[in-house]
């Protein structure tokens, strides 16, 4: 009684509050899958990233990036833990987002009326990729420096509107102040990601069919499921934190950036490797940048590339989607451990072929 009176008091004074409370009190169909928990877990990880990032930003010095991070690890009390929270939080956030996207493609969860939610998830991918790359660059390590060097070099050759955007973003070729600038974007984009994830969740839920039949309350049925999922995530987090804090991050960025020593090849954190591999296939002035934009664009266009109408996913489509998942995984692997020429080209070709040719064809066939 007491709390409800308070909620009413707040809801009548602050628009949107009733909406938040309704989200928690809303009754749902029983028996939702574990995968429905992913957005909430992603939100928790983003909160971890924002909190640890807030601490790091107090001690981080973009003009002496490497030294200040070394200071955080050596001098700041508990700094090594906070740094690990940030690194592992990023790793796991990407893992969950990739899982979420893969599952949505697999079950065709992107079709109307869920296409708006899907577009938000793809936007989240774009924003997190950019944020993650900026984080990699902000390390002040050898890999990040040369990746930034190449990116600004390519961006400065752009002209017209893209050139103006690139100039505004990077402020010119790499210099002493570039990282200070990119730090602002890193933080800004992280906050954007929080907004996008809230919107994506709301849109995805709205798109779901209105539940029929017996309904259950969030408390305690779904609260128990969320809590169980969260404790498993915390367990994975703890394993990485204690025993593999640098898993998938590579040793190259532990070397301070040097303008004199050009690495033979840049090694990226695991979650950027598929994108780096895809970008590396296209050469030329801004080929890398356009390749990444194109890859996100085909994902974005998926609701329209799918010609199935309302038909449920067929077996062949499922097989192809698993193949696509393996394709992206392999693209990451061949980027991290370069082997045999021609492989990245083949895998990149398959990525675009899957979306632009196979998806329309197969969905049309299976719907017929």
């Amino acid at each position, binding site marked *: 009684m007491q709390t409800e009176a308070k909620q009413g008091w707040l809801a009548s004074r602050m628009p949107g509050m009733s909406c938040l409370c309704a989200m928690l009190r809303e009754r749902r169909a*029983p*028996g939702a899958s574990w995968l429905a928990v992913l957005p909430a877990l992603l939100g928790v990880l983003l909160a971890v990233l924002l909190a640890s990032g807030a601490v790091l930003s107090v001690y981080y010095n973009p003009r002496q990036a490497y030294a200040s991070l070394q200071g955080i690890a050596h001098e700041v009390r508990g700094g*090594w833990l906070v740094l*690990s929270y940030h690194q592992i939080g990023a790793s796991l956030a990407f893992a969950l987002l990739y899982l979420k996207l893969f599952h949505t493609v697999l079950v065709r969860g992107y079709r109307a009326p869920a296409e708006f939610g899907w577009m938000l998830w793809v936007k989240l991918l774009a924003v997190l990729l950019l944020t993650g790359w900026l984080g990699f660059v902000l390390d002040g390590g050898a890999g990040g420096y040369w990746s930034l060097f190449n990116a600004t070099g390519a961006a400065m050759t752009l002209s017209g509107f893209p050139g103006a955007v690139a100039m505004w973003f990077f402020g010119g070729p790499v210099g002493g102040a570039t990282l200070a600038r990119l730090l602002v974007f890193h933080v800004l984009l992280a906050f954007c990601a929080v907004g996008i994830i809230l919107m994506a969740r709301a849109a995805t839920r709205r798109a779901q069919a209105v539940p029929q039949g017996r309904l259950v309350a969030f408390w305690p049925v779904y609260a*128990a*499921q969320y809590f169980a999922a969260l404790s498993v995530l*915390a*367990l994975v987090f*703890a394993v990485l934190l204690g025993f593999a804090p640098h898993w998938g991050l590579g040793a190259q960025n532990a070397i301070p950036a040097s303008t004199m020593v050009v690495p033979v090849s840049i090694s990226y954190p695991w979650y950027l490797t598929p994108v780096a591999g895809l970008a590396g296939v296209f050469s030329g002035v801004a080929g890398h940048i356009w390749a990444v934009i194109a890859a996100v664009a085909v994902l974005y266009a998926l609701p329209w590339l799918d010609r199935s109408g309302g038909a449920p996913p067929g077996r062949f489509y499922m097989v192809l989607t698993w193949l696509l998942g393996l394709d992206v995984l392999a693209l990451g692997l061949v980027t991290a451990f370069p082997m045999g020429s021609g492989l990245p080209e083949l895998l990149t070709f398959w990525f675009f072929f899957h979306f632009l040719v196979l998806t329309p064809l197969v969905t049309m066939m299976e719907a017929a």
Partner: protein
Amino acid sequence: MMRRFFAPLLAVGLLAGVAAHAEDTLSPLRFQSAGTFGSIDLAAAQRGFAVYQGVCASCHGMDALHYRDLQALGLTPAQVAGIAASVKLSDGSAATPDSRFKEPAAMSMSGAVPPDLSSIVAQRAGGTDYIYRFLTGFGPAPAGVTLLPGSNYNAAFPGGQVFMPAVLHDDAVTYADGTKATTAQEAADVAEFLTWSADPNLSARHAVGLRAVIFFVFLAIVAMLTKRRIWRQEG
């Protein structure tokens, strides 16, 4: 069934525990810092600092460290003050415990610059083991290998030719704890010291990690069981 599974595990664990306390860690080579539950061998790291200070510091800096950080290796504040006082900084004054490790004069050997060693273990594939193999990898070049002028043969270094000379030899330093300073001992000790400097919180990380993992294993089990019970009742 469970006991049959765990008994051999327990035996292996006990054996490993015994090995950890054995005196000889050189044959076969093993680092206390290695492995999932490894921790820094403080005595070895102290000796390793002596090797660094006596042999490597003339060429390599370690700019992430202050002399006071050595207290984490078990040195007393008085010992640290003594070490710092014996270091003459480039402006002629004596170092204090709050000074950073002295930077050696800039140098290059045939164009190769000695890298800072603070985080070298994190920067090289193979970590601690690689540093040991590198420091003990010097030797005469095998037939058929022609060395560049000024370079030395090193079996562990990628490409086999390095511009750092072989600097370790038996009794290159005298250990305060009486350990015999063989080349291998010096290399292993300095490798452990460099492992500590690259990750000063290695021991704490493993301890915190183990406790957190145990806690969350139990929490996850309880949460899963609770969820199943609630869903059986209500779902």
